[in-house]
């Protein structure tokens, strides 16, 4: 028999996880959509955000500083990576791009392991968001509620940047046709660098705000990367709204399955992905010809 209060709590967990996955996936998907590069180091960016935030927290004790440090540090890593390495791969076959980003992911993970070891680290939630909150129909950890708010705000901010600013318009135009954007006199490489930075920052931000919920370790990004792939396959590559829809679906699937048996959450994710691939091969909100 299903325990209903437990079920509702799991649905909420699914919502939080889903929002988080949506944020990470939209980072991955705008990078792919604009640059045409599938960043296999995206999971490592998530991990780097957590560690950068943890270092900042250790020195300052401030959660806000930690979040800012995590997001900005990963953005910086993204900008530098694009400028120094990824840029030389635009003209090379997509397989080479996968190989080099896969290698970079390993380098990031192992560098962190070298400096901080393999043991996991924790960042406590800010004092404002500790404890539990009674929502009337259930009690729920306050930080998770806060996390839902924080991630939603981040997604809204990303949406605003993409859909309401000049740079966002250029990015969306670049997703449609980057050659055309280039020939309109816009420095497409600078846009690419910025997009790689912003996309990475989305993952890094998610990495630090999730740190109070799940402790961080060097390989914490691996599982996230796989889940992100499932989200993108479900939602459709290059689609911001698809990433959000896919994220929420994946989050709910993982959480609700975990209620019965956590071991099967991956299997259920896989079944969902299979269904989408069979029924709508380009993803729920994707379109043909973008791979």
């Amino acid at each position, binding site marked *: 028999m299903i325990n209903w209060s437990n079920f509702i709590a799991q649905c909420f967990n699914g919502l939080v996880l889903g929002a988080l996955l949506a944020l990470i996936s939209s980072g991955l998907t705008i990078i792919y959509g604009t640059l045409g590069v599938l960043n296999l180091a995206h999971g490592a960016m998530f991990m780097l955000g957590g560690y950068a935030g943890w270092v900042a927290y250790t020195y300052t004790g401030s959660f806000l500083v930690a979040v800012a440090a995590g997001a900005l540090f990963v953005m910086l890593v993204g900008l530098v990576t694009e400028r120094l390495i990824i840029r*030389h791969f635009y003209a090379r076959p997509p397989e080479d791009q996968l190989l*080099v980003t896969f290698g970079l992911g390993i380098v990031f993970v192992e*560098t962190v392991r070298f400096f901080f070891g393999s043991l996991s680290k924790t960042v406590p939630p800010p004092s404002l968001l500790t404890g539990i909150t009674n929502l009337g129909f259930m009690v729920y950890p306050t930080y998770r509620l806060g996390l839902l708010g924080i991630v939603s705000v981040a997604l809204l901010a990303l949406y605003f940047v993409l859909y309401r600013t000049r740079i966002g318009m250029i990015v969306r135009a670049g997703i449609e046709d980057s050659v055309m954007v280039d020939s309109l006199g816009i420095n497409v490489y600078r846009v690419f660098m910025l997009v790689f930075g912003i996309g990475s920052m989305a993952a890094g931000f998610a990495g630090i705000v999730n740190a109070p919920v799940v402790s961080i370790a060097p390989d914490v990004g691996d599982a996230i990367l796989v889940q992100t792939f499932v989200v993108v396959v479900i939602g459709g*590559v290059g689609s911001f709204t698809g990433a959000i829809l896919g994220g929420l679906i994946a989050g709910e699937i993982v959480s609700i399955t975990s209620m019965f048996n956590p*071991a099967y959450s*991956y299997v259920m*994710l896989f079944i969902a992905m299979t269904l989408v*691939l*069979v029924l709508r091969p380009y993803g729920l909100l994707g379109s043909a010809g973008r791979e």
Partner: protein
Amino acid sequence: MPTIPRQRPFVVEALTALALLAAPFILPHLGFSPSTINRILIYALVGIGFDLLFGYTGLLSFGQAAFFGTGGMFAGYLLTQTSFTNTIVALILGTLVAGVVGYLVGLLALRRTGIYFAMITVAIAEVFFFVEFNPLSAFTGGENGLPGVPSPNLMLGFKTFTFDSNLSMYFFFAFWYFAGLVIALRIVRSPVGLLLRAIRDNPLRAQALGHDIHGYKLTVFVVAAMYAGFAGGLLGLMQGFMPPDAFMFATSGEIVMQTAIGGAGTLFGPLLGAATWLLLSDFFQTTLHLGATWKLVLGIVFVLLVIFLRRGLAGAIMDLVHLARGKRQGRASPATATPAMPVQPVSVPAASAALPPRHTPLQDKPGPILHTTGLSKHYGGVHANADIDFTVNHGERRGIIGPNGAGKSTFFKMLTCEVLPSSGRIVFEGQDITQLGVADACQLGLTKSYQINQLFERLTVRHNLAIAALGEIRGKFKLDLFRDLRKVPGLDAQVEHTAALVHLAGRLDTPVSELAYGEKRRLEIGLALATSPSLLLLDEPLAGMSPQERVETVALLKSIAVGRTLIVIDHDMDSLFELVERVTVLQEGRVLVEGTADEIKTDPKVQEAYLGGVQGAFA
């Protein structure tokens, strides 16, 4: 791609066998421990299968661990949890299970290509990892794996040999590596092997030339899974323990990285890569005492190799060999090239006679070869083609003209079944082909040369033409994995005759990437011709050519047209009117008029469309 000397077919195999025999006596002096050597062979064996998939077919899978683990676990389970003791049979059963699993996974993953394919394989492999760890842990030992896997043995019924010393175990593994390599070399040299490379270079054209590319992709995916499954079984035998980490994402990653380091598309790359990888990891860990840092150093090495050594170590070695050879004898090939075709319209009766269209003779078959009724295509609200009724008779030479955007190319795409019409019917030789795929249409004898060259850039002219000819000779799908490409009956003759027809006979062994534009254009037509079509569609065959080349190409097309039906789109009216008998004019997706060249030239509606119409001028 290995350039296998034609006259010495077994030299690669013989050299490899010698090297494998010598290795256990030489490698220990270079710092390889016996277990490292065995591990190299196992990873190189998975790598061979992966190289067929990635290096030859262009499918980058990050999920090989799923099959490596499945094959290994199945064999390990038989040998530890049941009374089964025959290790070789267990290995083979594990391989078969991995193959079946590979088939099922392939059905799903191959629905997409490119990065989607990579992402799907990652996701599926993770599912295998979790299933192995939890729901199936009663069979797989969960995180403990399966201990107690016996040493390899060979049961002959009357006597059983056990390979438990270092050296005997090495020879057991070396034998299987060698067998795997020989099989892979056969596959690579077979028609299927050539088609795999065709799929890597240009999947859409490979399909348009009449090949069931999905079938071949699924085949190579299963083959790669079987290689991985067999090697997984060997891993258990080597360690005496089947480890669960065979299933991990990191294992898939190592297989990818080793092949990339060694050089993809060489079959020997995985061996080089595995040797480099495992030697370095031994060296960093035991000699330099780097501890866990070895992975960081290897990661950096890998990134640098990907950045600077595009074709891996094997590619670098081949470049060095070419450099050394080139210095000795200079490069001979470009000198023999024909700079231009003979200017006079040449008659090539011998060639065209030897290359008949497949449904002869035309003279006895009056009436239409192709007939469309009410053919329409719209994209959203845009009507690219509307209600086209179009008939071409056997042996006719038809031209299609129209301003840019008139829907000519869309019309061609529907005729070749590349695009499904929104409504209407296409009947070819009395058969309704409206719902067929492009490969089926080509198999029936209807194909197209493209407006923009669609060639197999990394292959030679000979291989390009062979890919086209194989579609007709072998049909849509055939698993002749072990047949020598050079022994396919009729292939060489057809390739050479087509090459003669398009004046590329002197360039047969030149890679396409080294051809001049005009030569590529002729090869484009040659690809369509080599399928022996009874109806040939030519989409702007004169595009981008100089006036001189146009004259030559018109002569070429006239010689091709003997005994077959031709439909030609072009903007060069003078050349077109000289070439074709009747002309159909399209405008805004509809048939405007149809008639002989003279009728078209004087038709007021055509003049209106071109001179007074929306487009304003000859496009």
